[in-house]
């Protein structure tokens, strides 16, 4: 049983309580899902229940009662920063060593653990960096299980995975769940709603607004889900029925913008991508999809001419003064890597400066449009995740180029930020700006893209025209949960 009573938490640099008199108890064996908008303190709550706060991460905390367990395992979001050893067997052995398991028993236990999470290797001495994201996260689950935990904490274990990887991870969790308590934070409701038997919703003030069975919460608190912008099973169908989406269904043009003819992209002398003949039209919304490592990003870098290329690429907008990669607006997956100045305002001014034009009104308009006006003086790193993402898109769109390329811009975003960005991109598209987007989100592909390029093993495997634009009954389309 996990129990907190009248929990109060306040971060030193914040002027309000994150939690004020929060009480919660989770009986042994329950499977609990915690949902809430970004900044509601979901992760903090999970780390308190695990005892990481305040024992390891020092955060001022007060509670009348705090009953937690020392017998827990935890899986974090980022597949790359939760391992300390380079090989699969060494990572699992690290956990067994911590538990002082005798060395002779380790190999057998490691095989058992890997079988439990359904990952099989010919040789367990395999480098972790060779694994796919889904395999890495299942390895993380295995190392959590190695502690034989009574409570398993899952802190958005699939936030950085593609659809296939997410499915593998949740299938694994479904198959291993037994007696132990499981506390989950997850955005992808379609995977978890069947596993859990209780949903707790926090609001943006860190207060519990709902606490009931999944079906009850999804039915009776839909408004709250929408208000706080949390993903729920019908987020997408609601959006598709919305006014802003209806406005999206307009005609699209056929004016060629970029043509690629037998183009290859090279990375350190090896050919990583080859495309025979593809065209980007003005006003297109192209979704580039494919498994992790298939060459999606390489294709984008080829179009941008950031890597060595062979073949012919026609750019129908180029004027020859600037390199191509500065004529295309680009949004990187990690927004922080794009920031070069010390404030939000200057970040936008920097984009304009390169175009020899820094107009105060344009910047102010952009700040308003992307809801960044109130934070204009802050350092970009001080922004919340959603704000950082908006700023990175803003720095790209303010240049008013003909084409904008985005590398997985909706990854790990909550519903409110995702739909806001999609509306905004569509607005740009209607102004004649072409959008190319690397994405794992099939919903975006099906409902917003005009063209889908499926990349497999460094080749364009298929060019698909998502059908939703041909049908008029978009609101009725059903969505797998």
């Amino acid at each position: 049983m996990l129990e907190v009573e009248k929990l109060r938490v306040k971060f030193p640099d914040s002027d309000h309580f994150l939690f004020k008199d929060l009480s919660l108890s989770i009986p042994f064996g329950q499977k609990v899902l915690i949902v809430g908008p970004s900044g509601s303190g979901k992760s903090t709550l999970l780390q308190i229940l695990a005892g990481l706060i305040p024992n390891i991460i020092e955060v001022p905390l007060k509670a009348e009662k705090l009953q937690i367990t020392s017998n827990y395992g935890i899986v974090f979001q980022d597949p790359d920063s939760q391992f300390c050893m380079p090989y699969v067997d060494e990572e699992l052995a690290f956990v067994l060593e911590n538990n002082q398991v005798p060395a002779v028993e380790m190999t057998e236990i490691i095989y058992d653990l890997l079988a439990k999470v359904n990952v099989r290797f010919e040789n367990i001495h395999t480098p972790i960096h060779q694994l796919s994201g889904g395999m890495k996260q299942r390895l993380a689950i295995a190392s959590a299980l190695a502690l034989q935990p009574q409570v398993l904490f899952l802190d958005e274990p699939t936030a950085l995975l593609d659809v296939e990887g997410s499915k593998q991870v949740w299938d694994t969790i479904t198959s291993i769940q037994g007696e132990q308590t499981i506390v989950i934070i997850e955005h992808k409701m379609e995977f978890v709603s069947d596993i859990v038997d209780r949903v707790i919703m926090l609001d943006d003030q860190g207060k519990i607004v709902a606490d009931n069975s999944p079906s009850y919460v999804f039915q009776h608190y839909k408004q709250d889900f929408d208000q706080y912008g949390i993903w729920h099973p019908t987020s997408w169908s609601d959006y598709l029925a919305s006014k802003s989406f209806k406005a999206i269904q307009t005609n699209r043009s056929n004016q060629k913008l970029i043509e690629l003819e037998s183009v290859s992209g090279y990375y350190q002398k090896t050919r990583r991508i080859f495309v025979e003949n593809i065209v980007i039209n003005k006003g297109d919304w192209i979704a580039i999809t494919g498994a992790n490592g298939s060459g999606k990003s390489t294709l984008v870098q080829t179009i941008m001419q950031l890597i060595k290329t062979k073949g012919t690429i026609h750019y129908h907008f180029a004027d020859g003064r600037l390199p191509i990669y500065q004529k295309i607006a680009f949004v990187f997956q990690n927004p922080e890597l794009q920031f070069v100045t010390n404030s939000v305002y200057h970040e936008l001014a920097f984009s304009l400066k390169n175009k020899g034009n820094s107009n105060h009104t344009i910047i102010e308009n952009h700040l308003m449009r992307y809801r960044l006006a109130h934070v204009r003086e802050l350092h970009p790193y001080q922004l919340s995740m959603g704000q950082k993402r908006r700023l990175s898109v803003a720095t790209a769109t303010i240049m008013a180029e003909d084409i904008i390329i985005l590398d997985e811009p909706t990854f790990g975003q909550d519903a409110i930020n995702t739909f806001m960005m999609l509306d905004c991109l569509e607005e740009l598209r209607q102004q004649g700006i072409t959008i190319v987007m690397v994405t794992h989100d099939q919903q975006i592909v099906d409902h917003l893209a005009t063209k889908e390029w499926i990349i497999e093993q460094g080749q364009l495997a298929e060019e698909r025209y998502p059908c939703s634009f041909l049908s008029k009954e978009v609101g009725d389309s059903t969505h797998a949960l």
Partner: protein
Amino acid sequence: MHFELTYRQTWLHALHPVFKFVMVIVLFVAILFIHNPNFLFYMLIGFGFLYIGWTGHSFKLISILSSPFLIIFVSSATSMMFFGDGTNTWYKIGLIHITEESFYRGVHLGLRGILFGLLGLLFALTTRPVLLFYSAMQTLKLKPKYAYAFMAAINLLPIMVSEFQTLRNALKVRGVTYNSGIKGVYQRIQYFSIPLLAQSIRRAHRTAIAMEAKQFSNDRTYYYQVSYSLKDLYFTFLILAIMATSFWVSTIYSVFPIDNVRMR
């Protein structure tokens, strides 16, 4: 980005890592007390064989890694040759003054530099860091928290490299330009260091929490049991043999007509 080095395991890989480390350090110190360039020359040949034949790495990699040796040799040898003291002048122009004494001293320094590099590579190419730290924990009683801190840090390096490449592209796309000269270097440091540091610190923090969550403790068992074997004895004998042979040959066949560079 990850570099995958494939190599075959040789008996040098099977040596006790800490023992091997100590031997290399002992050799480093010993070399400092050798003043006969002939002796160093023959030692170089001896350890050169070991380096070329028994690290288990591809010939291509070995050759690429040895190329800096030439730079080490030339840079350390020439500075001594050109500007060192000496009485028996061979050539003089402006500041440059080559004498017989300074020439041989330069050659000697160059040989020493190469030998240091060679031994260092011999160690690095045949020792996995993980095993070195395991063995340091077991033999030298290094505290696990320090050993694991190092191992986790080594694990972060490849991620930093790929992040660096992404950052470089990002700055290019944003249209960042640099001044030329020293100011440009300063600008680059500014643009690169803060994002890279911020990402790394955050990632290190996450890794640390993940390790703590896996109940990291200083009382632990060891997956790898590092122990001594007969091979360590052979290794010692081999080193002694190389030293002895080099010394013996250097007294018979002198490549350089000098046996102590310190003598005038």
